C-alpha cells in the first residue's frame, strides 16, 4: 500500500464537495450511507461553509468500490444534502487547505496580493470583481489569513479540515512516492 495523497491525481479516486445543512448527525448520515452501500472513503473533511448554517464536506472516494454517479445520487437523497459538486482531482498537500473567493475591485486587489505574498499564499483565479486565493499550511496559519481576509467581502470560503499523515523518515518517503502521481508530494 502506497501512501495516499487525498488531493492527488491517481485515477481510482474522485473528490466530492458536498454542501450540507449544518445539523446534528449530518456527518453520521453521510458516513453511514457510504458504509451501508459499500462505498469506500479515502478521506473526509468537514468545515462550516461561507453560510454558517451550512457545512462543506470534502470526500475523497474510491471509484473502484462504486461508480461516482451512484454515490452522488445516493448522497443527494439525504435530505440534509443541499448541493454536490464533483471536483477535479488536483495537487495539494496534506495538513489543511483554505480556498476563498474574495470580492475585490481593482483598487482592493493589490492589498489582497500583498496579503497573499506575506502568507505565501496563492492567487488561483482573478475575475473582474473577485479573486480566488488559496493557502496551504498549518490550521493556525490559515486562521490568521482568514481573519485578515474577512475585512474584505468573502463570497465563498472552504477549509478542508485537518488531514494528517505521520511523518516518515527519508527512506520511507522515497518509498511512498507514487509513480502515477503527476504532482509534487512534498
Amino acid at each position, binding site marked *: 500500500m502506497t501512501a495516499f495523497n487525498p488531493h492527488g491525481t491517481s485515477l481510482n479516486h474522485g473528490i466530492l464537495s458536498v454542501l450540507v445543512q449544518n445539523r446534528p448527525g449530518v456527518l453520521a448520515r453521510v458516513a453511514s450511507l457510504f458504509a451501508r452501500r459499500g462505498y469506500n472513503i479515502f478521506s473526509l473533511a468537514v468545515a462550516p461553509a461561507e453560510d454558517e448554517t451550512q457545512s462543506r464536506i470534502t470526500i475523497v472516494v474510491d471509484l473502484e468500490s462504486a461508480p461516482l454517479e*451512484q454515490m452522488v*445520487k445516493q448522497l443527494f437523497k439525504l435530505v*440534509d444534502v443541499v448541493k454536490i459538486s464533483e471536483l477535479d482531482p488536483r495537487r495539494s498537500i496534506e495538513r489543511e487547505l483554505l480556498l476563498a473567493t474574495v470580492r475585490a475591485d481593482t483598487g482592493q486587489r493589490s492589498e489582497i496580493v500583498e496579503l497573499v505574498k506575506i502568507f505565501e499564499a496563492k492567487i488561483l483565479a482573478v475575475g473582474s470583481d473577485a479573486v480566488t486565493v488559496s493557502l496551504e499550511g498549518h490550521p493556525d496559519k490559515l486562521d490568521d489569513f482568514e481573519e485578515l481576509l474577512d475585512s474584505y467581502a468573502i463570497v465563498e470560503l472552504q477549509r478542508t479540515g485537518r488531514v494528517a499523515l505521520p511523518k516518515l523518515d527519508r527512506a520511507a518517503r522515497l518509498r511512498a512516492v507514487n509513480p502515477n502521481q503527476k504532482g509534487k508530494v512534498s
Partner: protein
Amino acid sequence: MSTASTRMTGAQALIKALEMEQVDTIFGLPGGCILPAYDPLLESSIRHVLVRHEQGAGHMAEGYAHVTGRPGVAMVTSGPAATNLVTPLMDAYMDSIPMVGITGQVGTSAIGSDAFQECDTVGITRSCTKHNELVMTPDDIPLAVRQAFHLATTGRPGPVLLDLPKDVLQNEMTWHWPTDDEVAGSLPGYRPTMKGHPRMIKEAARMILAAERPVLYVGGGMLKARAAEILRELAEMTGINVVTTLMARGVFPDDHELCLGMPGMHGTIAATTAMQRADLLIALGARFDDRITGRLDAFAPDAKIIHVDIDPAEQGKVRRPDVPIVGDCRLVTEEIVQAIRDLTASGIEQADITAWKSRVSGWQEIFPLTYDEASPGAGLKPQYCLEELRAASTDETILVSGVGQHQMWASLHWKFNQPYSWVNSGGLGTMGFSIPAAIGAKAGRPDATVWAVDGDGCFQMTAQELVTATVERIPVKVALLNNSYLGMVRQWQEMFYDERYSEVYLSTETPDYVKWAESMGCVGIRVESPEEVGPAIEKANSINDRSVVVEFRTDSEEKVFPMVPAGVSNDEVLVHPSQEQFRAQLG
C-alpha cells in the same frame, strides 16, 4: 388558526400538529418516555389503535398507507419500543410506503447516559428511514411534524421518524404552524423532480413507436404516483402488453387483454419471457429488482430501456437505461402519451407489433398457471383455496399477504382489477406482515372487505394483533394456509438441497389455530377437505362483526411454479412439470 401567543406543551403541540396534518388514526402503544403525548390524545379527534406489539403498530401504519395513499402514523415509546419499530420502518423504506413514526426518547439531559429504556433511535433508524430527526426543543415540534409529513409523502415516498425526548414533550412552547414556504425553506436540499425532461420524453415516445417487441414493465411507483388511469391509456393507445410487478399488482387490471401478470422469479411464463425477448422495456416506477431480473447479465439482452422513476438514484443503479427520465410517474406517463399523440399527428406510425403480440399470446396459451389436482386424502391445494376465495370476492376486496409461498400464490392466482386492492411486503420480505397490515388497511378503509392471506409460519409471528382487531372492533378475515412448514424454505430445500429438510417443519396440530382464534375473540374455522372450502369462505364472508380465521390444511409438498432459481437466467425458468414438454416454445 391559533394566534402566535398560544402557549402549550410540546405534547399538546405534537397532537395538534398531527391533527393539522389530517391524521385520523394513530397506531401505537404508550410507555414511559412517550407518556406526555398520550395525555392530550384524550381530548383529540384522532383515533388511537392500541396494539399488542410495536411491530404491529408499524405494519398497521403501512397497511393503512397502502390502501389510503395517506401516510400511516405509528407512535411508540423509547428503547425497546423504538427497536421493535425498526422492522416496519425498513419494510416501508424498501417498498416506498409513506409513514411517520413517532418515538419517545429519554429526557435531553439523560441522552447518552445509557438511561433506562434509552437507545440511539435516530442512529439505529438512519438507514431504514427516508429521514429522521431528534427534536431537541418543543418549539421545533410543529416544523418537524410538517417536514416529516412532507418528506414522507412527496418525491419517492418513505418512512420518516421523529424522536421526541420526554422533556421536549413536557415543556411549554409557543404554537406556530409553519407555512409551506417555511417548510420548503427549511429543506433547501429537497426538491423532487416532478416533470420529465422534454427531450427525453420525446425520445421515449419515438422509441415506443419504433419498437417491434415492446413491453410495459410497471412497478409500484405507478401506484404511488396514482397513475393507473394514464397507464391504461398508454397501453391501449399503443397496444403494448403490460407486466405488473409484485408491488404493482392491481395498477393494471388482470382481466385486461394486454395484461401478462407478474414477471420474475415466480412470475408467469408470458410475463417473464416477454421481458426476456423484448426489444424495448418501458420501465415505469420499477427498480429492476433481482427478483425480476434473475441473472443480470442475461436479463432482457436485446432490450433498450426507458426508465421512468422519481428517484434519480434508481437510474442506472442496476441496468443502464437508454432513456432515463426522472420525474413523477403519472406526470411523465401523461407527457409520454401526449408526445406519442404529437408524433402520430405528425405522420409517424407505430411499428407493426402484431407478430410479437401473437408470440406473447402463444406463451400465455401454452403456459397458463396450473397445478395438480389434490390427491384424495392429501392436503388441500392452496391455489384452489385462493381461487375459491377470489370467486367469492369482489374486485374491491383488499387482499393483504404475508411473505412466502402463500404470497406468491396469492399474487399469481388472485385476479387484481383495482389499484390499491393488494398489500404485501415486497422488498424486505417481512414474515408476519399480513395480520397487522390487514388491520391497518381495514382501519383506513372500514368500508372494504379485507382478507389477510397468511402462512402458518407468518401467522405465528404476529397473530396476537387479532386481539387488537377484536378489542378495537376492526374486523378482518384471515385465510390461513397451514401446510405445517416454512413452505418456501422447504421448497428450496427440496429443490436445491437434495430434499434435506433442515429446521423447516413447524407442526400441524400445534398451535390449535381454531382455539387460538377463538381465544382472541375471532371465529375460527378449520377446513380439511375440498368440499368444505366454499362453505367456509361463505360463512367467513357472512360474519362482519368480528374477525374470522379460516385455517386451510394444505398440501405440504405443493411448490410455487413457475420458478427461476436464484442467480440463474430467466431463460432457464422452471415451468410446472406438466408443461416441461413445451419448453422449446419459449425461444
